C-alpha cells in the first residue's frame, strides 16, 4: 500500500469501492482520534506539573469528601448518608441532595484500579478524572459532528474541543467538579440522539436513554437536554421534516428518560412535577398525534382524509381547550409557575438580583463580559457563523439540531458565565463543520487542477478578489491534521486529502471553485513553514514563560509574522491552560524579583484547626469556605457552599454585620467555638471577606430587617477608612479583620482597599485571637466563654440598657437576638 498507488487512485477520480483505501482511511482517523485524546489529556495536567496533584477551588473539596466516604463505607452507606458535620445544627441529607454521577465514576475508577492491584489513592483518582473524561468528550464530539457532516468535520471538531479554553477551565487536573463528567455525558447524549435520528435504530435509542441517565446523575444542567431535544422535535414537525425515525428517536427517550431521571434520588418526582420537564411531555403528546395523523393519511384516500380532519378538528378543539385550561390553572396556582429559582433566573436574568441574593452573589452566575468570549472560545467566535451557514447547505435533521443547539447555548451563555461551558461543544462542532467544508472546497479545486484531469471551471471574479483570505483559510484547514501529529509529513497529508474523497464522494452538484494551481500549492507550502514555525514558537514561549496573549492578539489583528488565526488559537489555548486556568486557588502564587512566592495560608489554617481544636468543635465562617473546612480541617461548619438554606446563611451574615456582643450571642446560640475570616489587606489578595461583606449585609438584611444596608454605606459605597460609618467600624467583620493590623506597618494601610483603616486601636471583648497565618490571610478567633458573674450590673437593668441602645440607633424593630 504505497503513497504512489493511492495518489494514482485519486487521480483516476473513481474510488468509491476501494476497500483497502477505506480501511487505511479508517485506521488513520482512529489514530488521529487517539492522538487527539492524548492531547486533551496532556494539556490539562499543567496544574499538576506546576503546582502539585491537589484538588482545586471549593466545590471539588466537597465532592472529594463524598468520594472518600463512598470508598471507605460502600455504596449503601453512601445512599443513606446523613451528614452532621455541616449546616450545624440542621445537617444535610447527602444521599438525597447530591448528584451522584461524578463521585460514583471516580469511586469506580478507584475500585477498579485497586482490584487490579494498582494502589492509587482516592485523591489521585479524583484529580485525574477530569482529564480522562475530557479525552472521552472529544471523542464524543467526533461522534456528534461525524453524524452531522462526516468524518472530516468530526475530526476537526474533536481537535477543537480538546483545546477550547472554556472547557479546559472547568476540567483541569484537580478541578473535580460535576462538569468534568457532565460535559462528556451531554455531548455523548446529543451524539447518540443524532445517530438514532439518522439511522432509526431502536438500539441507539436505548443507548441514548442510558447516556441521558448518566447525564441526569451528573449535573443539574440535564434540563437543557430535556428541553432542547423536544424543541428540535417540534421544529422538525413544524417544518415538515417529520419521519418515523424522528418518532423512534424521541418517544422512547421520553418514557425511559423520565423513568431513569425519577430513579435518581436528587431528582425524584421533580421529573414529572416541575415545569422544566413539561415541554418534553407536551411534545410527546404532539408527536403521538402527528404520528397517528400520518398513519391515517397513509391508509385513507385524500377525500376521506379531509372529512376525517374536519370531524376531528371540531371535536378535538373543544377537548383541547378544556385540557389547556386545567393545565394553566394548575401552573398559575404556584407562585413561581412551577419553575425552580435557578431556572427562572436563566429565563429572566434580572430575577435573581431582585429576589434571590444568594444566587446573585455567586460570581459564576454573573453575565459574562465581551472579552471573556474571546478568552474562552477564541477563534471559534468567528468561525461559528460560517459553520451555521454550512449547516444550511444542505439542511438536514441533524444540521438543524446543531443550529438550534448553538443558538440556545449562545443565549444561555450570555445570561450566566458558567454556561459558557455548554456553548463550547456547540461552537467546536459548528467550527469543525465550517473548516471541513472550506477544506472540501479547496482540495476539490486542487484535484481538478492536477494535470491530466479536465473540466475545470475557473471562476475568475471570485478567486482573484478572495485569494488572500482563502490562502489563510486553506492554512487554517490544514492545521488540524498538521499539528495533531508531531512531525507532519507532506506525503501523509496528501494521502489523507485524497482519501477524504471516497468518504465524501457524493453525486451532489457543487460549484467548482477552482483556484489557480500555483496559488494553492504556494499556500500549502506556506502551511508547512507555518507548522514548523508554530511548533518551534510554542516550545520557545512556554519555555521562557512569556505570556503569549498580547502577541497573539497583535498577530490576529495585523497578521504580522504571517501567522494565521489557527496558530493564534493554539498558542492562546496552551497559554490559557498553562497560565490562566491551572491555578488551584487553594495555593496562590506570584512571581516577583525572579522568584516564585507561594501563599499556602489556607492549608496552614485548616491544618491548625485540624490539630489544635477538638473534633466536635464547631467552626463558623462565610459559606465560601465551608466545603474546604469540612474536607481539610475535618470540623463541623455552620454553612457551606451548598447554600440550600438561605435563613441559616442570613444568620451568619447578620452575625458578621452586628456589633461584638450581638454577634457573640448569635454564635453562642449556634454552639460555635471558632470563627475565622479571610483577610487580604496585608498582601493585596482581593477576594477576601471585607470585599464580600456587601453580600453578608444584603443576605442578612433580606431575612433580618434590623440589618439595613444604608447603615454601612457612606456616599453609596462600603468604606473602611476614617470616613466609614460607625456601624461599619463596630461590626464584627471589621473588628476581626483589622484587630492588631496596625502592628504590621504602624500605619494600618490596607493594600486591597488602598487606604488606611478608620479605627486602628481597639480591643476585642468577646473574642480572642488564637491564630493568624503567615501572611495574615486567615485569622482564627475563639469565642470567649460567658462570664459566671455579672459585675456592676444587675439582671433588672439589663433589658433597659438593651432597649436604650436599640432606641439610640433609631430602630423600632425588635432585634430577635436580644
Amino acid at each position, binding site marked *: 500500500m504505497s503513497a504512489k498507488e493511492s495518489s494514482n487512485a485519486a487521480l483516476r477520480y473513481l474510488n468509491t469501492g476501494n476497500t483497502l483505501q477505506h480501511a487505511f482511511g479508517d485506521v488513520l482517523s482512529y489514530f488521529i482520534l487517539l492522538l487527539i485524546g492524548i492531547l486533551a489529556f496532556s494539556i490539562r495536567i499543567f496544574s499538576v506539573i506546576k503546582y502539585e496533584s491537589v484538588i482545586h477551588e471549593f466545590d471539588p473539596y466537597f465532592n472529594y469528601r463524598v468520594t472518600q466516604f463512598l470508598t471507605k463505607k460502600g455504596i449503601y452507606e453512601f445512599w443513606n448518608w446523613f451528614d452532621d458535620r455541616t449546616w450545624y445544627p440542621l445537617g444535610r441529607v447527602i444521599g438525597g441532595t447530591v448528584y451522584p454521577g461524578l463521585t460514583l465514576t471516580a469511586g469506580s475508577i478507584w475500585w477498579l484500579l485497586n482490584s487490579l492491584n494498582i494502589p492509587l489513592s482516592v485523591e489521585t483518582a479524583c484529580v485525574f478524572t477530569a482529564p480522562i473524561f475530557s479525552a472521552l468528550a472529544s471523542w464524543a464530539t467526533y461522534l456528534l459532528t461525524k453524524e452531522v457532516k462526516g468524518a472530516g468535520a468530526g475530526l476537526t471538531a474533536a481537535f477543537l474541543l480538546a483545546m477550547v479554553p472554556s472547557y479546559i477551565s472547568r476540567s483541569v487536573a484537580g478541578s473535580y467538579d460535576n462538569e468534568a463528567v457532565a460535559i462528556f455525558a451531554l455531548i455523548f447524549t446529543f451524539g447518540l440522539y443524532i445517530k438514532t435520528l439518522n439511522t*432509526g*435504530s*431502536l*438500539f441507539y*435509542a*436505548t443507548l441514548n*436513554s*442510558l447516556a441521558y441517565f448518566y447525564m441526569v446523575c451528573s449535573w443539574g444542567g440535564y434540563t437543557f437536554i430535556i428541553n432542547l431535544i423536544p424543541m428540535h422535535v417540534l421544529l422538525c414537525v413544524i417544518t415538515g421534516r417529520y*419521519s*418515523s*425515525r424522528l*418518532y*423512534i428517536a424521541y*418517544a*422512547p427517550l421520553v*418514557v*425511559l428518560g*423520565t*423513568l*431513569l431521571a*425519577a*430513579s435518581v434520588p436528587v431528582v425524584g*418526582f421533580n421529573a*414529572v412535577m416541575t415545569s422544566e420537564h413539561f415541554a418534553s411531555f407536551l411534545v410527546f403528546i404532539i408527536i403521538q398525534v402527528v*404520528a397517528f395523523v400520518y398513519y*391515517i393519511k*397513509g*391508509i*385513507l*384516500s385524500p377525500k*376521506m382524509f379531509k*372529512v*376525517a380532519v374536519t*370531524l376531528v378538528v371540531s371535536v378535538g378543539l373543544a377537548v383541547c381547550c378544556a385540557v389547556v385550561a386545567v393545565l394553566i390553572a394548575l401552573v398559575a396556582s404556584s407562585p413561581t409557575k412551577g419553575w425552580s429559582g435557578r431556572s427562572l433566573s436563566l429565563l429572566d436574568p434580572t430575577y435573581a438580583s431582585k429576589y434571590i441574593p444568594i444566587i446573585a452573589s455567586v460570581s459564576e452566575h454573573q453575565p459574562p463580559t465581551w472579552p471573556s468570549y474571546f478568552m474562552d472560545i477564541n477563534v471559534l467566535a468567528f468561525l461559528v457563523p460560517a459553520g451555521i451557514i454550512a449547516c444550511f447547505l444542505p439542511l438536514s435533521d441533524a444540521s438543524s439540531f446543531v443550529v438550534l443547539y448553538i443558538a440556545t447555548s449562545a443565549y444561555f451563555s450570555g445570561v450566566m458565565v458558567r454556561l459558557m461551558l455548554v456553548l463550547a461543544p456547540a461552537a467546536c462542532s459548528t467550527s469543525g463543520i465550517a473548516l471541513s467544508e472550506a477544506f472540501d472546497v479547496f482540495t476539490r479545486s486542487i484535484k481538478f487542477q492536477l494535470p491530466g484531469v479536465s473540466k475545470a471551471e475557473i471562476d475568475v471574479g471570485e478567486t482573484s478578489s478572495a485569494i488572500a483570505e482563502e490562502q489563510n483559510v486553506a492554512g487554517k484547514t490544514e492545521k488540524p491534521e498538521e499539528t495533531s501529529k508531531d512531525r507532519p509529513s507532506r506525503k501523509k497529508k496528501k494521502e489523507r486529502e485524497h482519501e477524504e474523497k471516497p468518504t465524501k464522494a457524493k453525486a451532489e452538484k457543487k460549484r467548482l471553485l477552482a483556484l489557480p494551481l500555483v496559488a494553492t500549492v504556494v499556500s500549502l507550502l506556506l502551511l508547512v513553514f507555518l507548522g514548523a514555525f508554530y511548533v518551534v514558537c510554542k516550545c520557545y514561549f512556554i519555555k521562557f514563560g512569556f505570556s503569549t496573549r498580547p502577541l497573539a492578539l497583535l498577530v490576529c489583528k495585523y497578521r504580522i509574522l504571517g501567522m494565521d488565526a489557527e496558530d493564534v488559537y493554539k498558542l492562546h489555548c496552551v497559554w490559557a491552560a498553562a497560565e490562566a486556568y491551572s491555578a488551584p486557588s487553594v495555593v496562590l502564587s506570584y512571581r516577583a524579583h525572579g522568584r516564585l512566592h507561594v501563599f499556602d495560608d489556607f492549608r496552614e489554617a485548616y491544618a491548625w484547626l485540624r490539630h489544635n481544636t477538638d473534633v466536635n468543635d464547631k467552626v463558623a465562617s462565610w459559606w465560601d469556605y465551608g466545603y474546604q473546612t469540612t474536607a481539610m480541617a475535618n470540623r463541623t461548619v455552620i454553612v457551606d457552599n451548598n447554600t440550600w438554606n438561605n435563613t441559616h446563611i442570613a444568620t451568619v451574615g447578620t452575625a458578621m454585620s452586628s456589633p461584638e456582643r450581638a454577634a457573640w450571642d448569635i454564635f453562642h446560640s449556634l454552639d460555635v467555638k471558632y470563627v475565622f475570616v479571610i483577610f487580604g489587606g496585608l498582601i493585596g489578595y482581593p477576594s477576601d471577606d471585607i470585599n464580600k461583606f456587601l453580600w453578608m449585609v444584603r443576605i442578612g438584611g433580606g431575612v433580618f430587617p434590623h440589618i439595613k444596608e444604608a447603615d454601612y454605606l457612606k456616599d453609596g459605597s462600603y468604606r473602611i477608612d476614617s470616613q466609614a460609618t460607625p456601624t461599619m467600624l463596630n461590626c464584627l467583620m471589621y473588628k476581626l479583620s483589622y484587630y492588631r493590623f496596625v502592628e504590621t506597618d504602624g500605619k494600618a494601610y490596607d493594600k486591597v482597599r488602598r487606604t488606611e483603616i478608620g479605627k486602628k486601636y481597639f480591643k476585642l471583648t468577646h473574642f480572642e485571637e488564637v491564630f493568624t497565618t503567615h501572611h495574615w490571610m486567615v485569622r482564627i478567633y475563639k469565642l470567649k466563654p460567658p462570664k459566671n458573674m455579672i459585675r456592676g450590673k444587675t439582671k433588672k437593668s439589663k433589658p433597659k440598657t438593651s432597649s436604650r441602645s436599640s432606641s439610640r440607633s433609631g430602630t423600632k424593630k425588635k432585634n430577635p437576638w436580644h
Partner: protein
Amino acid sequence: MAREKSSKDNAQALFHSLRSAYAATPVNLKIIDLYVGFAVFTALIQVVYMASVGSFPFNSFLSGVLSCVGTAVLAVCLRIQVNKENKEFKDLPPERAFADFVLCNLVLHLVIMNFLG
C-alpha cells in the same frame, strides 16, 4: 338539515373507509396493534384506580403507568420498523427490529422494577 345529514353520511363513509383500509393490513401488524391497545387500556385502568384510591405511593403509580406507556411506544416503534410499506426501513431485517425491541423492553422493565418500590 341537509348539512347534518351530509355530515352524518360523511362520518359513516369515513368509518367504512377506515374499516376497509385497516382490514387490508397484514396479520402481524394487527397483532402489534392489539398489543398497543392492550397496553394503553391497562394504563387507563391504572389512572382511574389512582383517581379513585389516591396517589400514594406515587412512585409505584408512575412506574406502572410509564411501563404501560413505554411498552406501547416501543411496540409502535417495532410496528414502524416491521411494516413492509415503510420505505425507510426496507433494508432492516425484521429479526433485528424484534431484537432491538426486546433489548429496549429489558432496559425499560429493569428500571421499572427498580422504581416500583
